[in-house]
Every structure is written in C-alpha cells, then in structure tokens.
C-alpha cells in the first residue's frame, strides 16, 4: 500500500465501531441431520481475503474495513497492517453467500479482494 498517507493521523477522527456480539443464549433445537456431502458443502467456511497493492492508501483501507464489516478502528487497523506487511489478510470468514456479498462490497471500494474456501 502507498505510504503517502502516513502524514495523516485519522485516529482521532474516526471513532471505532464494534460488531454486535452473537447472542450466547441462543439455543439450537433438533437440528435436522443432513447427508454428509451437503453438510460439507454448506458448512465449509469461506475466507474473504484482501491483498496488498501499491495504490490503496493505508487509512482508506482501514476505513473501508470499518465501513464494510463494522470493525473497531483497532481491529481494522491491525488487519490493514497485516495486508501491508504480509501481503494479504483474511478479513472475514463464514457463509459463502455473505462472503460473496463482502467481496462485492470490497471490490466496490477497489480493494483487491477475493474469497477462498477455508
């Protein structure tokens, strides 16, 4: 990612948001038993991956991750740094349909994003 943005400190301007926690009280009763093949296909989680590129500014990547996933600024910043330093980062894992939605969102912000079976 491009280094130009280092002059800008937006930390005070973009307060973090937090994902709503899943309800631990939720109870699943008598879930139907599917055949093995179906379970494998449906339950395989998908990773949404963002790749490093020399164009996107670092604060922008952080802001996009906050906007798309509702991550806190600290979490989004850490992911952005992982992208920058390690070349890529898994920014989300879960159902395939949601993964597709998130990849579309990220590509709409011109991040180099793709999805892959975990």
């Amino acid at each position, binding site marked *: 990612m491009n280094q*130009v943005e280092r002059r800008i400190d937006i930390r005070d301007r973009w307060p973090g948001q937090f994902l709503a926690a899943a309800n631990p009280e939720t109870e699943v009763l008598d879930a139907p038993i599917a055949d093995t093949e179906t379970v494998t296909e449906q339950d395989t989680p998908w990773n949404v*991956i963002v790749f490093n590129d*020399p164009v996107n500014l670092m604060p922008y990547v952080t802001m996009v991750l*906050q906007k798309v996933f509702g991550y806190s600024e600290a979490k989004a910043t850490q992911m952005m740094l992982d992208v920058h330093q390690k070349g890529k980062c898994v920014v989300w894992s879960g159902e395939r349909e949601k993964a597709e939605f998130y990849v579309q969102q990220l590509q709409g912000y*011109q991040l180099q994003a793709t999805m892959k079976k975990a």
Partner: protein
Amino acid sequence: MHITKSEDGTQLMIGGLGETELEMLRGVRDAADPTACPEAERRLFPAPIADADEHDFDTIADWKEFVVPDLRTRFDDALDQLESDVADARQVRKLPMKRFVVKLRVEHVELWYSALNQARLVLQEKYKLPSENTSLSLEDLFAKGQWRAYFQSRFYAEVQCWLLEAGMPDGWR
C-alpha cells in the same frame, strides 16, 4: 494548492490549481480507462474466487453477468461526478500565472476518491510504476516513459490524502 471546507461544511474547495493540475484532473477519466490493458481490467474487476474449481463456474459466470456491470456503473458514476465538478472550475487569477478553484459537495468526496483511485490503479498497471519503497530515479522514469504517469499518479494520491483529511461523509464514521 490547498483544500478548504466552506463555513457551513457542505463544500470543499480545491484552490490554487495551476493549469497543469487542472489538466490532470480533467484527465482522470482517460487515465482510468482500462481499455487495451487486460491487467488493469483484471485489477479493477478481480475474480471473486481464488483457486476456483468446477463447482465455482456458476458463481463466476453470475459474477460476470451481474456484479461486474454493477461495479462498472458505480465506477463510471464516480468518474462522471468528478468530471462534472471539474468542468465547473473557475479561474480566479490570470497574472502572473492562471489559477483555478474547483468546488465539490461533501457528498461527492467518496466519488472523487473512487475516481482518483481508479485512475491510479489503471496507471499503476499500465505503466508498472515504481512503488514508494523503491528508490526513484528520474532518469529511469524518463527512459521508461513513466514520468508523466508517475507524476499524475502522485498528484492524484495527494488529492486523495486531502480528501481523507478533509473528511469523508458521515456514512463513513
């Protein structure tokens, strides 16, 4: 060159623009055109699935049919908005050098950012510009015919920094 926000917070003004800078802003659409550069096309519209197998063909086909056109429209809208705002540039000084000001509404900041980003992504792929981390040689830039694209991309990056600093709309917080 400078960027200021109107007192009521509804507009940004990019002032002190010389003819060269204004020309570069007018050139954003051309710079962002990935035609004849498959790498740029692939960068703007990447494949949705890494290591796709035969089970993913339908998803990829659907993506090309529905998602890519949607992204293309979204990207074009951003270019349209920037172009429209730049077309309304006002000359504020003639001597000793012409100076211009471009105004944009705060709601357009995200579209401007997107348009400039598209241009930088395409310039990067077309000209394989050196990254910030590599040592920069002007001689190399000239020899490889990269100098214009390089300075254009640097200028767009500067404007993007200002836009981030000036603030994205509320939806970004």
